[in-house]
């Protein structure tokens, strides 16, 4: 039943990735996961391994409880899926699964008991003695069940809102002019203000109102965001948080602690900032005029007074009507103001990505047509100089066109990086660790199509770094480090690749423990001596979950192999390095800049040319006769580095006559896919090339073993090999 196994594996991979990004209360997301689990359940019916089905059902049951809000923690779900993955791996290796699943089953089922008690609590909730009516000065009426319900919701929502404000404030500090960020901060304040007024929570209402109106002015451009404003907004957030938490505690204990906090001085200070608004706005224009010597400082003061009386009038207008400055001077000062105040923004147009893809495709066609023209016999033999000139000119235009059309699909990686701010924050909060996030190279560009695919693996790696890398604050202090850990995201271009680094300054990876664990899980293949990087990269092997055994922190289960697979889907590679003496580790992802280009080795078999993707290649060599083995002329093998690897004759697979009948007359390239190695026999390696991938069109799309066509520098077409496909064809033969 290999088909069935493959299906099950597919479901498991989907689950592992989806679960990582699942957020509390994400009903549609949970619906998708539930569907996958249901198909998984159907697909594994009748399977020998009953443990698998048992865990699948437990996971399903737990997910249902999550959906029904009977459980909140998603961790058991992840652990269940990770457990399924390891059962699956044992199954696919025909080994018996020997680990005890009772622990995980209990974790997935234990919520049953909790749930029962929870329900009994719900029952008693109504009877809760809420004589709080008189204890809560903010609420003049007696609390009904509905009020309590609404208050509870207010508490959760407000805390969420306040948290989101804090994150946005970091952006605001970096780009104080960004209207969208100001809006994002304004909105939650507005919500809190609205609900608190409905609930008669006077102090919360008045503080959020003040903060809101300050932001409103900033939004209208009346005041400029500066450090003072950011600080006071932060202070407001903190105070609001305190007050909301008091309500929360009051609800839980039935005792009110509300309004013990004095907010008058804070509100006053906000009002002060609110009032200074006009001055701040007009200062620059006045300053410029004074600096330029068009205007005397004292005159400017008078003008400002004047403007206060008539706030609708623009300062420039007053200056000119008063004759204090010439209109020319004012305009030139205004221009200067604009120059200094705003960065140059390139004009932009939104374009459908489909149109862009067509443009890239058509440019590709143009390149082909052009090279054909260049190599045309008549043109080659012509003596006409002007024709040469024109063709050279077209060459230049075509290559510029190609570069431009490629660059149009590129977007800065910033948005993906920024999503990580929230991820780090939440993780740090949940784990009780202190973690900061630094970013570098956010403007590095990446293919639009890759951005979304990158999100999940990055979340996964960051989570890994916080969970396993960064230590608890006291532990860090003992080690002489800053109690606050730092995760650094870097992006840059190198050699046609985009490189993304995720660095942490945590404890790093423990070589010895990784080796021990890998040995116990039989991941070493009997190899005795491993380099450091080989050891670290063991973490990415399927079956190696970096859970508690390595770091001592409770692991989240889903293995890093999922990340590796996701990155490989983008034709990328992932590498791990760890600095000695607990100075942290670095995860590096290297990916091609765009999915439209592939790096490969161009090789020849007979008259045909093929491109083998570099990612799949391990090595190439000229085999000696004594390295070749065969069983009855059928199963051909090559002995390489003490390993016997099956040989695939590329020519035979594609029905092409190669030059080399005996492997020792040809050349062998060792490739790997999903842990399986194969030697490909070919005639010659022509070089390393970066080629533009072209689809083969509808009719040839399904061709097995070929991933697409590639246009070579000389305009000829080569076929890009699909290694998994090639291995499969060889198996079929």
């Amino acid at each position, binding site marked *: 039943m290999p088909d069935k196994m493959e299906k099950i594996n597919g479901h498991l991979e989907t689950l592992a990735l989806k679960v990582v990004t699942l957020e509390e*209360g994400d*009903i*549609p997301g*949970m*619906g998708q996961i*539930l*569907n996958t689990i*249901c198909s998984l359940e159907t697909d594994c019916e009748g399977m020998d391994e009953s443990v698998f089905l048992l865990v699948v059902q437990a996971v399903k049951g737990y997910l*249902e409880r999550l*959906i*029904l809000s009977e459980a909140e923690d998603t961790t058991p779900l992840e652990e269940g899926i990770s457990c399924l993955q390891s059962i699956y791996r044992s199954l696919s290796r025909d080994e018996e699964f020997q680990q005890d699943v009772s622990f995980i089953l209990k974790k997935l089922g234990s919520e049953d008991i909790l749930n029962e008690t929870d329900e009994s609590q719900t029952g008693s909730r109504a009877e809760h003695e809420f004589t709080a009516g008189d204890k809560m000065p903010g609420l003049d009426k007696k609390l009904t069940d*509905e009020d309590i*319900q*609404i208050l509870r*919701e*207010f508490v959760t*929502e407000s805390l969420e809102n306040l948290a989101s404000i804090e994150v946005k404030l970091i952006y605001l500090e970096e780009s104080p002019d960004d209207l969208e960020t100001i809006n994002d901060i304004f909105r939650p304040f507005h919500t809190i203000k609205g*609900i608190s007024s*409905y609930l008669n929570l006077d102090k919360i209402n008045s503080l959020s109102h003040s903060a809101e109106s300050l932001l409103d002015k900033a939004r209208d451009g009346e005041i400029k965001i500066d450090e003072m404003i950011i600080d006071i907004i932060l202070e407001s957030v903190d105070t609001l948080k305190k007050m909301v938490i008091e309500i929360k505690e009051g609800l839980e204990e039935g005792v009110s602690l509300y309004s013990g906090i004095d907010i008058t001085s804070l509100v006053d200070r906000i009002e002060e900032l609110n009032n200074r608004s006009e001055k701040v706005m007009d200062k620059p224009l006045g300053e410029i005029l004074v600096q330029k010597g068009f205007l005397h400082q004292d005159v400017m003061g008078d003008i400002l007074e004047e403007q206060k009386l008539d706030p609708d009038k623009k300062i420039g207008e007053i200056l000119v009507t008063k004759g204090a400055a010439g209109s020319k001077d004012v305009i030139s000062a205004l221009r200067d103001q604009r120059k200094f105040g705003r960065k140059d923004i390139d004009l932009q147009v939104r374009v459908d990505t489909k149109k862009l893809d067509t443009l890239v495709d058509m440019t590709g066609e143009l390149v082909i047509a052009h090279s054909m023209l260049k190599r045309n016999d008549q043109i080659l033999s012509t003596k006409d100089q002007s024709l040469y000139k024109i063709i050279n000119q077209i060459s230049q235009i075509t290559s510029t066109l190609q570069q431009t059309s490629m660059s149009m699909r590129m977007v800065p990686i910033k948005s993906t990086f920024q999503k990580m701010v929230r991820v780090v924050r939440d993780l740090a909060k949940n784990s009780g660790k202190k973690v900061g996030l630094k970013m570098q190279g956010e403007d590095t560009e990446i293919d639009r199509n890759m951005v979304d695919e990158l999100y999940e693996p990055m979340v996964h790696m960051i989570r890994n770094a916080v969970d396993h890398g960064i230590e608890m604050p006291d532990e860090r202090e003992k080690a002489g480090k800053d109690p606050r850990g730092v995760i650094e995201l870097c992006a840059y271009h190198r050699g046609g690749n985009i490189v993304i680094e995720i660095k942490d300054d945590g404890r790093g990876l423990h070589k010895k423990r990784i080796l021990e664990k890998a040995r116990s899980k039989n991941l070493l293949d009997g190899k005795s001596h491993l380099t450091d990087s080989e050891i670290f990269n063991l973490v990415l092997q399927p079956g190696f979950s970096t859970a508690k055994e390595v770091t001592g922190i409770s692991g989240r289960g889903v293995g890093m192999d999922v990340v590796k697979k996701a990155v490989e889907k983008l034709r990328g590679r992932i590498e791990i390095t760890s600095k000695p003496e607990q100075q942290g580790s670095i995860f590096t992802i290297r990916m091609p800049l765009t999915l439209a280009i592939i790096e490969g080795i161009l090789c020849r078999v007979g008259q045909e040319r093929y491109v083998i993707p570099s990612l799949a290649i391990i090595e190439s060599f000229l085999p000696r006769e004594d390295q070749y083995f065969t069983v009855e002329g059928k199963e051909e093998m090559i002995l390489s580095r003490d390993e016997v690897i099956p040989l695939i004759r590329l020519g035979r697979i594609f029905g092409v006559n190669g030059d080399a009948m005996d492997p020792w007359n040809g050349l062998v390239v060792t490739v790997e896919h999903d842990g399986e190695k194969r030697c490909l026999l070919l005639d010659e390696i022509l070089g390393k090339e970066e080629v533009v991938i072209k689809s083969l069109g509808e009719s040839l799309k399904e061709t097995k073993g070929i991933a697409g066509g590639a246009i070579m520098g000389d305009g000829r077409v080569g076929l890009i090999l699909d290694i998994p496909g090639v291995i499969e064809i060889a198996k079929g033969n």
Partner: protein
Amino acid sequence: VNANKKILVVDDSSLMRNFAKGSLKQLKLNNVDEAENGEEALLKLKKKRYDLILSDLHMPNMNGLELLKAVRSDSNLKDIPFIIMTLHGKKDLLLEAVKEGLNDYLLKPVTAGSLGQKLKKVFS
């Protein structure tokens, strides 16, 4: 939430519809139509474009789950957010609805607070 959003409230009990409408009103959402069951709702959905369906689960003449399935399989309607209002203890039908692409659910009686939270999530 944008006050212009057009919302269809589906419930066989007029009291429950009023609860929902009252909460929507508190959220400044006045563009609300009502239907008594799934059949009536589908007719209305075909005549007018709604931004949200807020439906009961148990109803005669096409229940909430059947309505959801009909909406999700209609290429014109399938993207309309769908929130179910339900009482405790209708777990099986609700889980079935989640599998069919439900956006969210609310426990009855609907309050402005809980509804507002869900709407914010759905429209964000």
